[in-house]
């Protein structure tokens, strides 16, 4: 009993441990794979330290003893086959020995079968989307650190929160002790899904699906970041994994499912322009503002929608580009008819655009054909 309480206490403390890690090595491993990686690293470091001491020892012995200033005379040998063969074979053997545990670990990392739950992680510029494939809901996970803390160009920025850049609005939630399979893909450019404490890193590649897995051993919150350069806000798309008990996970899933249901658009609903505009604003801010900016002014390679020929021209062209994409503009065919219709309506009647018209879900449906 006492032991179990102790364990529970230790588990409850892990999140705070996570900040008080040793700064000189890996974060404390929280999954079997991460522990194995840690062990492998320790082994190779041991070998390296031994080789290092021998090599540098010999070199510095020579540097101090075999110098002219101590009167050392050069000896003119320049070959020794036995020695040369030895120092080719011995390192090769050491490496062959290292190759075994490494290969076993590669196979374990690559074995993504028998997952208890499967979650799709989609990289967007610059946030992550998580879809719980087995439970039929999904959501986006964005950096929660306020811009004001980030931008120090002028004096007077507010102090940085302790989890600066490693905090999100909605973390990924997984149950403890279960095999979690992560499918990665991306919507625009390559991103990479990396959580050091869990020992996972997997690139997220647009148009392709890759996978990886982990089993979190302790309840706690583990943090990582995108590790593939993905443009302007590459440094601002953290990954937060909240590991909870099985029971908590079930409660959370039920709540999420109910929320998803409530948010679903009723296909038979008659939409008014104002409703479309309100919905469109939401859709715009969660999907489009990353590139076109909240005020529709764009920037860099991303064109302004304010006053844009397409956003103020015929509806067909506007629907077309949103559904099919163009160059760096991704296709948004994955959004629902209502979402596409509302965001287009919003774009045509905001940022100073006044087309006055509005696009109905039925028109989007027709355009998809």
């Amino acid at each position, binding site marked *: 009993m006492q032991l179990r309480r102790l364990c529970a206490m230790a588990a409850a403390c892990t999140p705070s441990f996570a900040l008080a890690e040793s700064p000189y090595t890996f974060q404390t491993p929280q999954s079997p794979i991460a522990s194995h990686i840690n062990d492998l690293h320790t082994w190779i470091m041991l070998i390296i330290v031994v080789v290092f001491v021998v090599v540098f020892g010999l070199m510095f012995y020579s540097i101090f003893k075999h110098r002219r200033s101590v009167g050392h005379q050069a000896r003119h040998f320049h070959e020794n086959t036995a020695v040369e063969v030895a*120092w080719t074979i011995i390192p090769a053997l050491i490496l062959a020995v290292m190759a075994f545990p490494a290969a076993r670990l590669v196979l374990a990392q690559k074995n993504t079968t028998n997952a208890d739950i499967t979650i799709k992680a989609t990289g967007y510029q610059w946030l992550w989307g998580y879809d719980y494939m087995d439970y039929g809901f999904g959501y986006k996970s964005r950096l929660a650190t306020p811009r004001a803390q980030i931008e120090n160009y002028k004096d007077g920025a507010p102090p940085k929160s302790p989890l600066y850049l490693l905090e999100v609005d909605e973390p990924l939630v997984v149950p403890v002790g279960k095999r979690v399979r992560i499918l990665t893909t991306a919507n625009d450019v390559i991103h990479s899904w990396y959580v050091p404490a869990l020992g996972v*890193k997997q690139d997220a590649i647009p148009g392709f699906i890759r996978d990886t897995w982990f089993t979190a051993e302790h309840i706690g919150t583990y943090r990582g970041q995108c590790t593939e350069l993905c443009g302007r806000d590459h*440094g601002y798309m953290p990954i937060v994994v909240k590991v909870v008990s099985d029971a908590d996970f079930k409660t959370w899933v039920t709540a999420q499912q109910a929320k998803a249901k409530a948010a679903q658009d009723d296909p038979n609903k008659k939409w008014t322009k104002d409703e479309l505009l309100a919905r469109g604003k939401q859709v715009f801010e969660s999907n489009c503002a990353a590139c076109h900016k909240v005020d529709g002014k764009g920037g860099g390679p991303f064109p302004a929608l304010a006053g844009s020929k397409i956003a103020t021209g015929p509806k067909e062209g506007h629907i077309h580009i949103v559904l099919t994409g163009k160059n760096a503009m991704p296709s948004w065919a994955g959004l629902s008819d209502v979402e596409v219709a509302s965001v287009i309506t919003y774009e045509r009647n905001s940022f100073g655009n006044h087309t006055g018209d509005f696009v109905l879900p039925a028109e989007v449906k027709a355009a998809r054909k």
Partner: protein
Amino acid sequence: MTTTTDALNPAHPIDHGHGADHGHGGHDAHDHHHAPAGWRRWVYATNHKDIGTMYLWFAFSMFLLGGTFALGIRAELFSPGMQFWQPEFFNQLTTLHGVIMVFGAIMPAFTGLMNWMIPLMIGAPDMAFARMNNWSFWLLPPAAMLLIISLFVPGGGPGAGWTFYPPLSVQLGAGMDFGIFAIHLMGLSSIMGSINIVTTILNMRAPGMTLLKMPMFAWTSLVTAYLLIAVAPVLAGAVTMLLTDRHFGTHFFNAAGGGDPILFQHVFWFFGHPEVYIMALPAFGVVSQILPTFSRKPLFGYVSMVYAVCAIAILSFMVWGHHMFAVGFPATAQLFYMFMTMLIAVPTGVKVFNWISTMWQGSMTFETPMLFAIGFLCLFTIGGMSGLVLSLAPVDIQLHGTYYVVAHFHYVLVAGALFSLFGATYYWLPKWTGNMYSERMGKLHFWWSMIAFNITFFPMHFLGLAGMPRRIPDYALQFTTFNEVASVGAFLFGFAQILFLYNVIHTIRGGVGPSPQRPWDGATTLEWDVACPAPHHTWTEPPSLALVREGLIAQGLEESTHVEELK
């Protein structure tokens, strides 16, 4: 004959008769008698020494520019939060820093060294294709201009990292096109330069100098040139596909059109891994010249060194996947690349052991070139060891894309390539300028660089282990201390290079006095048999067999006969 006939009179009109024997259009060379004065000397340059000099100055100015960008990066990273730059501009700084250091500084610097030294070391009058040599150099300044201008076009410079991965590189603005064209030009220049080096080394060696008796620097140059000929077109192909994806509607790298973004990474790293050896092998060559000189002992294991270089070159075509362990290969591919990468550590280890055996039982002195060579040996070994850590695919999964990788490749590139270049400069500066550099300033430069380098890059290992991604302009608070240390180190390192510049200019202006023809008593290769400074034309008649043999015997590559011993 021990020195060239016109050694003391650089303006002495001579012809390139020797070159004609080797079929390089000897007749054209007749109208080129002595160095034209003023700007014509440089713009129309066909003399390998003038071209080498231009390469070296170009590379050094690119090094200062790329270094300035690096300081821009480190200034921003001194503390968390955005202080100086917008994130877009930060990405452009890292990209241009990488591209300029690799293609603008390190590679041209080695080409410059090869231009200057290969003909002198193998007893050739010039490079095989003197006019092509001019062209290969003069493609570089326009390439550099393109890179600099790219910063000022709408959308700014290329910001996709020196690896230019699509789709990001397809998404970016016109600056990317400038980057692509710059790479095309630099690739052309490298290919022409390499053809020249291969031809010169294969056809224009002094009598008696068979391939297995060449100085090690000639060997590594030869292998490097072959590597470049093999992979520069591959890079050109990759960036051309990017260009057509960007502008002409192709879909090589776009999944929506049936392409694959990972294809680019394969093609890029098929170039990219040999590329790291293109920057490392000439450094091996330089160190293999300097260590024997100052140990007063022949290079240990010459033949195994040659085999190791060739083995490294061949293996380097088979390990590119280790840069892509995180893209999600099937297990078999992951294993293949891991085993091959571990294998390549063996010949690299052989080289390190050979160098230490060269020093073993020598009679060492520690002039600046020797210090840089030893510095190279220490730091390159550390870089090689962190490379071994990264070769283990499961461990690389943790470290890929983090600062550990930044630490690793700066140990092999800055401490490897750059330190060997400093060593080479001090080693041959007396031959180039005729004057001796200030040993005190040189030693100060070494120790300052050595210490500052480690302050900058050693903490980056810890940052990477703790999980700090690379290419980010801002970071979480637990990374602050090591980033501060690294930034301070970077500025210290930067200032040390001003000292180097000052020392070189001081030497050109007279230094601490004229240098003897052979300033290093342990130096045995042919370049030390020409006058000091090396006259405009050297080895217009090939060195005599006796002279060549004398050097080879001292290098332990030939046995001396009884008669010679009596002399």
